[in-house]
């Protein structure tokens, strides 16, 4: 801020001012030297500036020399000394001072060139300038610091230690307690809520390999009854260790805690403890440690470094023994926590500067080396080898031997920031604890702005082009064109275009010339190296064209898209013009782009236009039924054409496909599309911001560090280093993301609450079935900008897919059903890059007792038993049914086979029976046998006998079917044989009984048999009966009756005796021989046909019918009686009718 009074004085006139300056420089020195605290550096700056302008070099040298030690202007005063010496002719002295200035951090190569240009031939100057240029990498980095304090959730603004835990969280030990910060929320443990933390000022914080956090506490200065000590935080609970001693080292204040290889080292008053499980080892003054409070510990594999109020101590444990060494060089120096640098050097912050121990020798860095103070409190080294040094007067970085103050962390409450602790996170963010200032997260800016301090003055044309040497060209509207040195970060040369009108736009043509568009719609060529302006002989349509958009054609010519004239092409003085008559659908072609195949893309009515050199083809762009208009084009590495539209967001078109809307950006005016390095794609969306479609991520918005500039942007230009450059009206901007920017966030699960109770997250979560309202808080550790982190979550076992992307850092599941789940959360950084692995925790909701495994098991067993019973019953039923079916099938098959056999048997049996009745004079005979089954046991036979008689037998084997048939055959044969042997029926039956009795008895079978011998001589019939139905005699007058003839069946009794019965027949008389199947035939209602029915049948009706008719009549009547039902028994009838003898 300018001092108003001083400014007023200078405005009164040069003479008055000069007098005042001289007076100031001559008379203020004693005052300044004696009362530096009251002097204003601004006064000095103003005065010395005037000395320079008045070329009062002696005065400048004296003033600067006198105040060279004044912080923080040591560099500026040293440069002034150098300049004054140079002007006074002491070139060597000037170079000495310049060396000092560069050592102190001067890296402004532009300033060196500008003010000390006359020294340029001197090799020393060249070396100094080279050093400065190398230091530029450090100094020219811009740092951004975000402060977190009590207002953000810290427990207070007075942190004393800062550490990063293994899960990525930042642990902050503060005056009033411990804070764990995950980027989304602050988890606090204070002595107000945790009475076990008795002490205040948490200095030492270390995490061991079991995830326990060890905390060292300082004495409570407000309460003498409370002393600090050692605490451990485990599973959300803090407990105090060694509260009652016996270790003196931690009986009071613990200011240092370190962890290594399973041991925790604790630095207290006058000693150090090693805690390894239950084993505690102590070192104290008696072991060689200097008296006083231990201030810092570094535990390495075999060595423990102890920084204390008494100096630096090394406890060597090599070769199994122990050796305590005290470094005399640091005797009496307050040593803080030592740090092992990547180079192997041990760096020890002390109140006498930063000591570096290498190869047994110490070197020291202090104020003379650019540090703002000799009181170095803490130190950290980042992944790029930059040292971060915390002092009592601010935070500085040191790289390549140069130091730079982090201006963003320069003072708190009007005092220089006193840095208490520094930690570099694993991904490059630097966290600094500032006394009374909270915690600062410091990181390199991705965005750097260059303005007047770099030689850039507006109003600028919002165009940036590359000069042939790779540097940038910027231009003022008024016509001044500047070459901007990227390395020096300054304007290197300026030239003015020879034109009467303002520059509107310019672009490179691939050669030395720029194509410049003027306000009056004219074009010029301008060579920034030579400063030469030349006309270009392009033939414009009448009235000229507005808003021209050039695109070089790689053949020395260029296309021009316009806002009023269609498309133009220029090469070698020849202009080609295409308008509506050539096939364009609009004269507003605007931006044009040549892709790698040589096809030109430009705007079209309702889409975009493809031009292959011969014809224009309109390609519609339609999103949600709305026709869109293209505005910008870019081709990515895979040959996909990105199309930015006017209001419809982004479209993409593959080499062979049609343009399709891309949902990553579904609205907005895309004012720029610029391919970055390695497949990145930059785009500017009007009013929304700058987007980067990073090659490994998604499109995110707005991009980190660019959101403040989007509305000013018109064009981005990406260089080969991966930086994009753009200009607004006043400044030139460079944006280049850091590699650590791209690191994906580390997702962590911060806390879990079930049924209003917070549960530890280190174990699988197990809750009861009625405590199944679960809230899970999570975070994504990405310190570049935690506000840009986004999440997706899912409960595996419940959710089919990831949740939509959200910025919420918590999720709640209500009424989670009993079961086993796995909660997963993954996080995305500001560049759209997702964490490769999700953070997970197993969640198990226990079932109620009626859904427990044992209950279900029992229920299942019971159900199984029931099912088994049912199945057994069904199987049994099925088997039975199947058996029946099989039996039926077998029966059917067997039946079929048997039927065939029986049919064959019947045929055979039929063959055994007489085919026709024999001719016997005086008799007529007719016989028939109908087996009840296919084959039967009945038979009849005629046996011609010697002497002209005829034997007639009707037999019935007890047993039907095959056995009966077999015995029928046997019996029939035997009957015939025996009939021929015996002329007496009774004898024949007796003989037959004797022959068959034994065989039939074994088979329990019998043969009923009636045997009759017909004597044609006198028409007599002599017969004997063995168990067979006696014959029915039917006289010609109708008298019918069964004859009396009986006897046991053949086989019934060996001693059976048979008797003959003889009957004489007259013509017309009939004797009916039959088997019992006739008289035992049953009606459907069970009535027996019986003897009487047959007697009655034959006693009635015509008695003169032929015997065959009588036979059929009997069979018909029996059949009718049975009403066609099943024939139960074989039926055999033989009718013997007495007839007239033939002559």
């Amino acid at each position, binding site marked *: 801020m300018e001092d108003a009074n001083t400014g007023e004085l200078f405005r009164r006139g040069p003479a008055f001012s000069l007098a005042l300056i001289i007076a100031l420089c001559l008379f203020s020195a004693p005052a300044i030297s004696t009362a530096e605290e009251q002097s204003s550096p601004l006064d000095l700056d103003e005065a010395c500036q005037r000395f320079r302008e008045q070329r009062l070099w002696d005065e400048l040298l004296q003033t600067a020399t006198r105040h060279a030690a004044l912080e923080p202007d040591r560099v500026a005063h040293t440069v002034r000394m150098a300049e004054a010496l140079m002007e006074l002719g002491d070139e060597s002295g000037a170079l000495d001072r310049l060396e000092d200035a560069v050592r102190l951090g001067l890296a402004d190569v532009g300033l060196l060139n500008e003010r000390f240009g006359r020294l340029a031939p001197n090799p020393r100057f060249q070396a100094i300038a080279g050093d400065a240029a190398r230091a530029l990498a450090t100094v020219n980095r811009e740092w951004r610091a975000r402060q977190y304090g009590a207002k953000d959730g810290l427990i207070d603004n007075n942190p004393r230690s800062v550490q990063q835990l293994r899960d990525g969280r930042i642990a902050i030990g503060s005056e009033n307690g411990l804070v764990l910060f995950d980027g989304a929320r602050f988890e606090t443990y204070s002595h107000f809520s945790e009475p076990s933390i008795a002490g205040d000022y948490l200095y030492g914080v270390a995490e061991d390999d079991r995830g326990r956090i060890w905390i060292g506490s300082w004495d409570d200065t407000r309460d003498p009854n409370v002393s600090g000590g050692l605490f451990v935080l485990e599973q959300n609970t803090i407990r105090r260790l060694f509260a009652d001693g016996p270790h003196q080292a931690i009986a009071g204040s613990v200011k240092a805690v370190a962890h290594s290889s399973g041991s925790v080292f604790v630095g207290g008053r006058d000693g150090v403890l090693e805690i390894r499980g239950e084993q505690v080892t102590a070192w104290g003054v008696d072991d060689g440690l200097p008296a006083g409070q231990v201030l810092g510990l570094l535990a390495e594999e075999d060595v423990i470094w102890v920084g204390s109020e008494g100096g630096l101590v090394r406890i060597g444990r090599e070769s199994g023994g122990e050796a305590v060494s005290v470094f005399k060089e640091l005797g009496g120096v307050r040593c803080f926590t030592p740090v092992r640098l990547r180079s192997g050097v041990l760096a020890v912050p002390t109140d006498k500067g930063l000591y570096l121990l290498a190869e047994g020798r110490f070197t020291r860095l202090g104020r003379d080396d650019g540090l703002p103070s000799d009181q170095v409190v803490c130190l950290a080294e980042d992944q790029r080898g930059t040292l971060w040094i915390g002092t009592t007067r601010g935070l500085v970085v040191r790289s390549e031997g140069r130091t730079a103050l982090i201006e963003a962390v320069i003072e708190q409450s009007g005092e220089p920031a006193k840095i208490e602790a520094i930690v570099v996170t694993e991904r490059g963010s630097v966290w600094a604890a500032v006394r009374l200032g909270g915690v600062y997260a410091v990181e390199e800016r991705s965005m750097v702005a260059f303005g007047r301090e770099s030689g850039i003055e507006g109003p600028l044309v919002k165009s940036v082009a590359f000069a042939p040497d790779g540097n940038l060209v910027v231009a003022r509207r008024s016509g001044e064109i500047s070459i901007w040195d990227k390395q020096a970060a300054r304007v290197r040369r300026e030239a003015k275009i020879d034109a009467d009108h303002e520059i509107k736009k310019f672009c490179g043509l691939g050669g030395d010339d720029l194509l410049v568009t003027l306000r009056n719609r004219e074009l010029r060529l301008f060579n920034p190296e030579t400063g030469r302006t030349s006309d270009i002989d392009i033939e414009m349509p009448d009235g000229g064209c507005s808003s021209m958009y050039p695109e070089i054609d790689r053949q020395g010519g260029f296309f021009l898209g316009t806002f009023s004239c269609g498309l133009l092409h220029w090469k070698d003085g020849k202009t080609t013009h295409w308008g509506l008559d050539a096939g364009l659908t609009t004269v507003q072609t605007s931006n044009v782009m040549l892709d790698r195949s040589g096809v030109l893309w430009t705007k079209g009515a309702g889409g975009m236009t493809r031009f292959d050199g011969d014809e224009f083809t309109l390609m519609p762009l339609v999103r949600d039924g709305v026709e869109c208009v293209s505005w910008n084009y870019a081709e990515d590495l895979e040959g996909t054409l990105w199309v930015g539209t006017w209001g419809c967001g982004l479209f993409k078109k593959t080499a062979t496909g049609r343009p399709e809307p891309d949902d990553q950006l579904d609205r907005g005016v895309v004012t720029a599309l610029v391919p970055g390095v390695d497949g990145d794609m930059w785009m500017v969306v009007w009013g929304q911001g700058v987007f980067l479609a990073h090659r490994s991520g998604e499109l995110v918005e707005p991009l980190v560090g660019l959101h403040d500039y989007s509305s000013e942007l018109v064009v981005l230009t990406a260089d080969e280093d991966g930086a994009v450059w753009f200009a607004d009206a006043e400044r030139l901007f460079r944006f280049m993301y850091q590699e650590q920017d791209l690191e994906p966030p580390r997702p962590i699960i911060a806390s879990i609450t079930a049924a209003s109770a917070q549960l530890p997250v280190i174990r699988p979560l197990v809750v009861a079935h009625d405590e199944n309202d679960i809230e899970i808080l999570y975070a994504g550790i990405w310190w570049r900008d935690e506000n840009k982190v986004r999440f997706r979550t899912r409960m595996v076992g419940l959710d089919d897919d990831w949740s939509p992307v959200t910025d919420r850092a918590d999720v709640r599941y209500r009424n989670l059903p009993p079961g086993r789940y796995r909660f997963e959360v993954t996080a995305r950084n500001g560049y759209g890059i997702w964490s490769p692995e999700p953070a997970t925790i197993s969640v198990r909701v226990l079932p109620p007792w009626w859904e427990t495994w044992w209950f279900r098991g029992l229920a299942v067993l019971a159900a199984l038993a029931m099912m088994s019973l049912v199945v057994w019953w069904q199987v049994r039923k099925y088997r039975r049914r199947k058996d029946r079916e099989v039996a039926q099938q077998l029966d059917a098959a067997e039946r079929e086979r048997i039927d065939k056999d029986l049919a064959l048997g019947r045929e055979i049996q039929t063959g055994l029976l007489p085919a026709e009745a024999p001719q016997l004079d005086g008799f007529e005979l007719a016989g028939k046998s109908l087996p009840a089954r296919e084959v039967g046991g009945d038979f009849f036979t005629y046996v011609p006998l010697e002497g002209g008689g005829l034997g007639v037998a009707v037999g019935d084997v007890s*047993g039907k079917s095959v056995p009966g048939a077999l015995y029928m055959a046997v019996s029939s044969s035997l009957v015939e044989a025996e009939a021929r042997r015996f002329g007496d029926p009774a004898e024949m039956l007796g003989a037959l009984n004797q022959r068959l009795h034994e065989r039939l008895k074994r088979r329990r079978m019998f043969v009923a048999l009636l045997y009759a011998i017909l004597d044609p001589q006198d028409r007599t019939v002599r017969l004997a009966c063995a*168990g067979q139905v*006696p014959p029915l005699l039917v006289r010609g007058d109708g008298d019918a009756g069964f004859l009396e003839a009986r006897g046991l069946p053949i086989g*019934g*009794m060996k001693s*059976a005796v048979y008797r003959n019965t003889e009957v004489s027949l007259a013509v017309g008389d009939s004797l009916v021989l039959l088997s019992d199947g006739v008289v*035992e035939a049953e009606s459907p209602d*069970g009535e027996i046909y019986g*003897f009487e029915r047959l007697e009655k049948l034959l006693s009635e009706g015509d008695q003169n019918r032929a015997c065959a008719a009588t036979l059929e009549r009997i069979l018909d009547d029996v059949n009718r009686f049975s009403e066609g039902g099943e024939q139960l028994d074989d039926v055999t009838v033989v009718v013997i009718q007495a007839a007239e003898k033939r002559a």
Partner: protein
Amino acid sequence: MWQPLEIEAVQHAPVSVMRVRGDFTAESGDAFNEVFRQLAGDGARCFVVDFAGIKHLNSGGLAVLVGMLSEIQDTGGTLAFSSMASHFKRMTHIIGLTDYVTVYHSEQEAIAGLSS
């Protein structure tokens, strides 16, 4: 409808009564003979077959009775029938069984006749 033969053995010492019901055919032989032989095995010698429940008696059934008679005669026992329908009685007569077997009007008569 064919009805299987049911056999009920009733002891009226020294007479063993076999009450038969249903259809007495050759198919009934096994069942009838099993009861008969069990009784004979137990020492019975006097048998009465009571036909009061018989609906049907064919030649096959008569053959079974013939076989029974044969075995009883082999052991010197006695067989009688009772409660026979006339048709069955006639059949029994026709085949000559009545030469060896007395047919009583009723079971009691048969028992009494054989017990005397």
